């Protein structure tokens, strides 16, 4: 019962003191707003970089050319063998006729060439996509030595460098986001520390009259929570509207039609929730950390 009263009173007092110490609260809220804004934007960028990288990677595939002598049984046996390789995502069979048709559609000059042949000059193929572009090379090598395989090709050298560049960019964005989260935590914690420094006499009095440490900490923890939540409102609104507008203005992609932006619905809301949680958690722990200093009896 007593614990409940302390709990609810802490919530009430937290709201009260956010308003009573308005200028201090405002400083903390503004600090949270600015830093969380930066984190929110970096999350949007990182999310898109990641998705673009994944998109481009998935465009990369291995083409396996089958020997002309391969029978239907051999082909299906080979297909199951390729499917069993770790990292292979999809194996699509394309017969020479299908490929002829595709190429003829692409350019009529191909069609003319194909017409001059009795049998198709093309080989049957498997088009293989892998789950990670970095595995292209090793998987291609593995397939090359299988029976009935004439050759297994992917972009080789040029693709390798692109893949490396992608995974580098991916790692950099992740590190930047993590670093920004830490900087944010540090900045918010420190503004809260300053705000609580101004109220150390309040803590001193609470200790003096015999408030338990828990009863002293709780209102400050709730206050940090409120400040974190209030501080995350503006960044969340800005990124939701901002991203939707940018997405629509750009028609959903940048540079060319194959480089797609992430669809805003769900994505911006997910980022918004992350920012809200980040604000609340950093606010709470920031306050807790700041109060603790004054509780050493």
């Amino acid at each position, binding site marked *: 019962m007593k614990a409940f*009263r*302390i709990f609810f009173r802490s919530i009430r007092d937290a709201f009260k003191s956010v308003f009573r110490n308005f200028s201090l609260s405002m400083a903390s809220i503004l600090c949270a707003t600015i830093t969380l804004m930066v984190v929110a934007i970096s999350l949007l960028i990182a999310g898109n970089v990641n998705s673009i990288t994944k998109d481009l990677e998935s465009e990369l595939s291995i083409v396996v050319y089958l020997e002309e002598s391969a029978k239907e049984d051999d082909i299906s046996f080979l297909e199951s063998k390729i499917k069993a390789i770790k990292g292979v995502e999809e194996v699509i069979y394309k017969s020479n006729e299908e490929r002829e048709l595709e190429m003829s559609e692409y350019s009529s000059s191909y069609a003319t060439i194909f017409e001059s042949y009795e049998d198709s000059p093309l080989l049957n193929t498997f088009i293989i996509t892998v789950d990670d572009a970095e595995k292209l090379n090793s998987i291609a090598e593995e397939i090359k030595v299988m029976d009935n395989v004439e050759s297994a090709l992917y972009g080789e050298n040029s693709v390798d460098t692109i893949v490396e560049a992608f995974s580098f960019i991916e790692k950099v964005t992740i590190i930047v986001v993590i670093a920004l989260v830490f900087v944010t935590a540090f900045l918010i914690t420190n503004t809260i520390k300053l705000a609580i420094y101004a109220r150390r006499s309040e803590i001193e*009095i609470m*200790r*003096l*009259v*015999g408030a338990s*440490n828990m*009863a002293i900490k709780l209102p400050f923890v709730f206050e940090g929570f409120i400040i974190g939540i209030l501080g995350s409102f503006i960044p969340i609104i800005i990124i939701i509207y901002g991203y939707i507008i940018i997405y629509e203005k750009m028609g959903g992609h940048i540079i060319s039609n194959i480089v797609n932006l992430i669809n805003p619905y769900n994505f911006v809301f997910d980022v918004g929730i992350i920012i809200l949680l980040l604000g609340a958690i950093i606010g709470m722990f920031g306050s807790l950390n700041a109060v603790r200093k004054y509780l050493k*009896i």
Partner: protein
Amino acid sequence: MKFIELKNVNKTYSTGVTALADMSVVIDKGEFVFVIGHTASGKSTFIKMLYREEKPTKGSVVVGGVNVAKLRNGRVYKLRRKIGVVFQDFKLLPKLTVYENVAFALECLGMKEKEIRPKVMKAIEIVGLKEKVRSFPHQLSGGEQQRVCIARAIVNEPKLLICDEPTGNLDPETSKEIMKVIDSINKDLGTTVIMATHDKDIVNRMKKRVLLIEHGVLTGDYLKGSYKSHESV
């Protein structure tokens, strides 16, 4: 009846200053005791030992049957609930009214609103500040602010009231009135009072037990009324 007992207490601060040396004293329930001595003699250190703001380096400090020296940090608050403390600087919260400042002490403890109200009103009445319950500290005189502090210190009906120079910032007239309040708390409520002070007049006039501390050593313990205006204070 024994209420406070210090046995061979030593206090050396981390700076190497020895503020108290081999101090032993017994204070009974309901006593009124002045603690006097020059500046830096160790009065505040003695007082801080009682409510466990400082731990003795050596010796034992027993308050109400509890050895305060051995009390774990996490349990100190239980001791504090039985002790009221008043200081020279009032330590009031500037944004709370008189009522709220006094009620704050009980709210921190998780007491019910219904129980808080009569206790707070009673404490405010004892210190004679009924007309000012809705005032803020900056609207009060120094003497009135000190009354609020006393009300806050006694609102939870502590067995012990500790005052460290409560009249230090007040003029003689106001000091007298504050002393009347403290004296009546001692007499009417039976609260044990320990008060450190520099004020000769108060000590000479009130004829209470006096502890004299010099350079951290208890050099005099004058029983009630036996203290005759000491030159050195």
